[in-house]
C-alpha cells in the first residue's frame, strides 16, 4: 500500500512538473520552426528567428529599459524595505498601524486597478511617462513585499544581541552593520530578487504607464503580437527564459538561492 502511495505521489509530482514546464517547452520548441507562423511541434529547425530578434532595435532597447527599471526596483525596494521594516519594527509612531495595513493589503489590489489609478494620478501630477514613472509604478508592487521580508528577518533577531554589541563598544552604526544587517541580509537579497523579477515580468501595470516610445519588453512583445504572430516572439520568450536561468545560476553560485528564502537558518 505504501509503495502504491509512493508511486502515485511520484507520478503526481511528475505530472505537476510537466504541467509547469510544458508552456516553456512549447515556446522554446516553436521558436525553432522554419514556418513564418508559430506552430507546435516545430516544422524543421532554424535559428533564423533569433537573428530576427537582434535585427529589431526596438526589442533590444525595450530589453535595456526593462533591465534598467528592474535593477532600479530591486535596489530601491531593498533600501526602502530595510528602512520601512526597521521603522515599523522599532518605533511607535502615528500612522504605524495604518502603514502596516496598507503595506499588507497592497497584495490584494489587482494590478489592473493599480495601473488605471497610476495612469490618472501621474496625469494629474503632470508626470510625463518616463523610466522614472515606470519605476515608481513597480515600486508600488515590490516595496510592500520587501518590507514584509525585512520584518520577518527582524522578528528573528534578538534585540539583546544589539545591546550586547553596544556594550562591547560598538557605536550605533557598527551595531547596525555587524548585528542588525546580517539578520536581514537574506530578506534584503530575497526582496531585491523578487522586485527584479516582478518588475521585469510586469505587463499589466506597465501597459498603462508606457508610451509608444517607451515600452518595456513584455509590453513590446504584447504589442508586437497584436500585428505579427511570427516566431520572433517565441524566440524572445526563449531568450528571456535563458536570461532567467543564467540569473538564477549566477545567484546560486554567489549567494545560494536557498538562502534568499531564509533556508540558512537551520544549517547553523
Amino acid at each position, binding site marked *: 500500500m505504501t509503495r502504491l502511495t509512493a508511486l502515485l505521489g511520484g507520478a503526481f509530482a511528475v505530472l505537476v512538473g510537466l504541467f509547469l514546464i510544458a508552456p516553456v517547452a512549447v515556446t522554446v520548441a516553436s521558436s525553432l520552426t522554419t514556418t513564418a507562423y508559430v506552430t507546435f511541434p516545430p516544422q524543421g529547425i532554424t535559428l533564423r528567428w533569433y537573428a530576427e530578434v537582434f535585427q529589431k532595435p526596438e526589442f533590444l532597447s525595450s530589453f535595456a529599459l526593462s533591465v534598467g527599471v528592474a535593477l532600479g526596483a530591486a535596489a530601491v525596494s531593498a533600501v526602502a524595505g530595510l528602512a520601512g521594516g526597521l521603522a515599523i519594527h522599532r518605533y511607535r509612531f502615528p500612522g504605524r498601524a495604518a502603514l502596516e495595513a496598507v503595506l499588507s493589503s497592497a497584495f490584494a489590489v489587482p494590478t489592473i486597478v493599480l495601473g488605471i489609478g497610476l495612469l490618472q494620478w501621474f496625469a494629474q501630477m503632470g508626470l510625463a511617462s518616463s523610466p522614472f514613472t515606470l519605476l515608481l509604478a513597480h515600486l508600488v508592487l515590490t516595496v510592500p513585499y520587501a518590507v514584509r521580508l525585512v520584518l520577518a528577518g527582524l522578528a528573528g533577531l*534578538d534585540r*539583546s*544581541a544589539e*545591546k*550586547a*554589541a*553596544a*556594550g*562591547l*563598544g*560598538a*557605536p*550605533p552604526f*557598527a*551595531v547596525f552593520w*555587524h*548585528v542588525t544587517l*546580517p*539578520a536581514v541580509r537574506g530578506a534584503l537579497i530575497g526582496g531585491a530578487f523578487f522586485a527584479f523579477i516582478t518588475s521585469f515580468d510586469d505587463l499589466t501595470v506597465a501597459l498603462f504607464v508606457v508610451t509608444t516610445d517607451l515600452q518595456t519588453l513584455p509590453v513590446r512583445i504584447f504589442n508586437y503580437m497584436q500585428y505579427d504572430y511570427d516566431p520572433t516572439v517565441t524566440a524572445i520568450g526563449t531568450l528571456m527564459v535563458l536570461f532567467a536561468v543564467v540569473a538564477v545560476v549566477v545567484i546560486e553560485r554567489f549567494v545560494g538561492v536557498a538562502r534568499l528564502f531564509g533556508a540558512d537558518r537551520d544549517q*547553523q
Partner: protein
Amino acid sequence: MSTSVTEAPARSDVRRGRLRLDGVRKVLGGKEVVSSVDLETEPGEFLTLLGPSGCGKTTTLNMVAGHLTADGGVIEVDGRDITAVPPHRRSMGMVFQSYALFPHMTVAENVAFGLRMRKVPAADRRRQVAEMLELVGLDGMADRHPGRLSGGQQQRAALARALVVQPDLLLLDEPFSNLDAQLRVRLREEVAALQRRIGTTTILVTHDQEEALAVSDRIAVMADGVIHQLDRPREIYLRPGTDFVARFIGEVNAIEGTAAGPVADGYACTVAGETVAATPAGDPPAAGEAVRLYVRPEVVRISTDGAQGLRGTVRETRFLGSRIRCVVATPAGEVTAALPFDARVPAVGEEVTCAWRPSDASLAAR
C-alpha cells in the same frame, strides 16, 4: 570549566569597578519603575539585585549598562559620572538570559567582537580569545556557530565575550534562567568561582532567591522600584528587614508581639505573655510598640525541658528528607520548625517550647 578555572592566570589584582548609584529613578510608560535606588559596590564585589518580575531590577541594570537613561539621580563608576554616557563608551560586559550571541559569527568571532571594536591587533585578539575560551571551557568550540552549541555552552561563550574586554563591570541579566535545573546550579557555581578569580565587579539580576544566596557577596532585595534591604546573604536570610524580604525569600514564621526593651543579646518582646528576643532590623523600636518577629524554620529549636520560649502543642510532624518539618500551635499562632534529620522528633500533641538565638531572628515595627 572548573579545571580550567584553577589553571587560569590570576587577575584578582584588578582593583577597579566601584559602582555607585545615587537616587536613580526611571519612569517607563508613565509608571515609576525605579523610584530611588542608592547602592555602592566594593571593587571586585559580586552584588545581586533580587526581586520578583516588575520590581525594577532589570531596569536598574539597563541603566547601569546605558541601554536606558536614568530620569533622575547619578550613576558613577570609579568616581566617573556615566549617567549620560552612551553604552558603547561605558566599559560593561553584559550577559543575557537569551545568550544574545551573534548567530552569523563563530564562537571565536563572537568573543573577538569587543576586541575588534577596540581595534586590538589581530594577533593579540586571537591569543586573548583562545585564552578566554579555555578559561570558560570552550576550547575546541572556537569555529562552531552558536546554533550548534548547547545552552550552557552558549552562555559560556557569552560570558567569554563579555569578559575578554576586561570590563569595569560584568552585568548578568538572569543568565541562568534558560538552563535546566542541574546545569543552572553548576554554571552558577562556575561563574561565581571565575568571578572570584578574575575579580571583576559583577552585578547579577535574578528572581531566584537560592541563586542569589549561593553566589553573592551582597544582595539587594528589590520590590516596587526600591531596594528593601541590601546586605550579605546570611543577614538577608536570617534577619529580613521588611515584611516583603521575609516573605519573598524562603519560608518564615512571622510572629506578632509587643516591644519590651533591649536585652544582652538582642531586643526582648512579649508574645502572648511569653518573652522572646530577636535582633532589630534598623533602629530598635520603642518599648510598647507593636512589632513583628521574623524567625526562619531552620533556626527554631524544639525542647521539652521547660526552657524559655514560645510554648505550644505539636500539631504535625513530617519527614521531608533533608529536614523534619514540625508545626507547633502556640498562643501566638502556628510556628514551623525545620529540624535536622537526626533530631528527636516530638510526638503530635506533646507540649513543647520553641526557642531560637536572638541573633538568628529579626524584628521590625508593624
